[in-house]
């Protein structure tokens, strides 16, 4: 601290000296503040590096770090090094994720083929913050004037789960193409899974048990008036929903056990008649993986209200979007698992068709 002289003669000198000192202090403080800022951003960068591995966040932090005005050479070097590493990591992760997303897309149909008298729409909502391939899938398999809609989920994540997802989807698809009823599709996949498990056990890999859940709905036109008969079977998935044209809600709840566990499973089938303007909604999971009862929320709270508000409007895309929005509403921060959504609206029959 500076000692004050206490005499008026020296007052001007004194003031000038204090001003100078204050300026120096201010400069020092400014320097300290910048260093603190740098160190804080370094922390952000480090967090981004070791934490979420979100390529965008890492890139952002790295970009910020390299634009810092740093007058300490050692610090500047450290920042530059870490920013370099961060950018490299971000690029690596981005490449990996790109590959994962490609694999994920290959598990879904490239398009939903048109089915006369129906409007189809689908959504695939990846789990938030996940960098692994999800195990969910959906499919629509057209046979004659009918279509079999499938949603499912393979327990677990990653490449191993994805290979099983592929097997599950194609087994169900093949059985559907051969004209099987929903319960038969599930029985077939169950057999296939148990067979695979037996092989694994014979190969000494007895801890690889993975089960599959699925819901299958076959929609077949009943006559020329546009009605469809829907037949549903399910194995450990939430019940498919019917939203009637007047907004009423129904769930189709045949009993059935998840696949890959039982030798002799039995799958019930439930039938319903879909009129013009009615909608069938299939969606995966959200029940097992999430900490809320999504099925309840899905049918009673958000979705029911949202769809009732759209009374009379037949738009499969819009309803699929509503279902997706509902998934986000139900589990905004905690979507632990992917969600697959498949929607079919019964449209007015095309008069040009015989």
């Amino acid at each position, binding site marked *: 601290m500076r000692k004050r002289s206490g005499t008026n003669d020296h007052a001007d000198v004194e003031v000038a000296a204090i001003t100078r000192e204050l300026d120096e202090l201010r400069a020092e403080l400014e320097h300290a503040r910048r260093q603190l800022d740098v160190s804080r951003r370094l922390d952000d960068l480090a967090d981004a590096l070791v934490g979420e591995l979100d390529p965008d966040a890492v890139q952002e932090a790295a970009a910020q770090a390299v634009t810092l005005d740093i007058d300490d050479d050692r610090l500047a070097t450290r920042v530059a090094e870490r920013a370099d590493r961060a950018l490299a990591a971000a690029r690596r992760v981005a490449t990996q994720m790109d590959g994962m997303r490609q694999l994920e897309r290959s598990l879904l149909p490239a398009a939903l083929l048109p089915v006369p008298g129906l409007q189809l729409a689908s959504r695939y909502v990846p789990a938030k913050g996940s960098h692994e391939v999800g195990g969910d899938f959906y499919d629509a398999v057209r046979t004659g004037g009918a279509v079999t809609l499938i949603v499912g989920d393979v327990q677990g994540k990653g490449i191993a789960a994805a290979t099983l997802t592929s097997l599950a989807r194609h087994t169900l698809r093949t059985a559907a193409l051969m004209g099987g009823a929903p319960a038969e599709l599930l029985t077939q996949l169950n057999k296939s899974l148990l067979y695979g498990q037996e092989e694994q056990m014979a190969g000494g890999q007895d801890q690889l048990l993975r089960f599959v859940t699925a819901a299958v709905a076959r929609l077949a036109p009943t006559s020329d008036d546009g009605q469809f008969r829907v037949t549903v079977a399910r194995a450990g998935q939430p019940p498919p929903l019917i939203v009637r044209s007047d907004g009423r809600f129904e769930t189709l709840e045949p009993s059935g056990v998840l696949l890959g*566990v039982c030798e002799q499973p039995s799958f019930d089938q439930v039938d319903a008649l879909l009129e013009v303007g009615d909608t069938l909604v299939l969606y995966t999971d959200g029940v097992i993986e999430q900490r809320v009862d999504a099925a309840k929320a899905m049918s009673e709270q958000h979705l029911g209200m949202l769809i009732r508000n759209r009374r009379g409007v037949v738009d499969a895309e819009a309803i699929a979007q509503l279902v997706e929005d509902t998934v986000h509403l139900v589990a905004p921060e905690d979507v632990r698992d992917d969600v697959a959504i498949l929607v079919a609206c019964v449209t007015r029959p095309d008069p040009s068709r015989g």
Partner: protein
Amino acid sequence: MHAEELHRLDLDVIDEPDEGVTISVQGELDTTTAPHLISAAHDLLDKARGSVELDCGGVWFLDSAGVRALIVVRNEALGMGMAFAIVRASDTVRRILDMTGLTSILTRSTN
């Protein structure tokens, strides 16, 4: 975050020499904790006789890895010629067993 609380699982074993063994499972049975149940049950099954029962009354979260663990333990018990049953289930567990169609397979009702 309360990450520690989020991945807690408590296992208590009640071993009754003539009756078999009861494992009381409490907390979260999920991706993180499921392996503990599988390995604990595996170790017990080597020594136990008769039946294996799981008390899941204190399980307040169950995900698909947890469901898988229940099936793995059940399969191992049956494979060794022992009876298996979940003797008590919390609402969460009951809801998920119903949804997955596993109620009749994993609980005593029809086993």
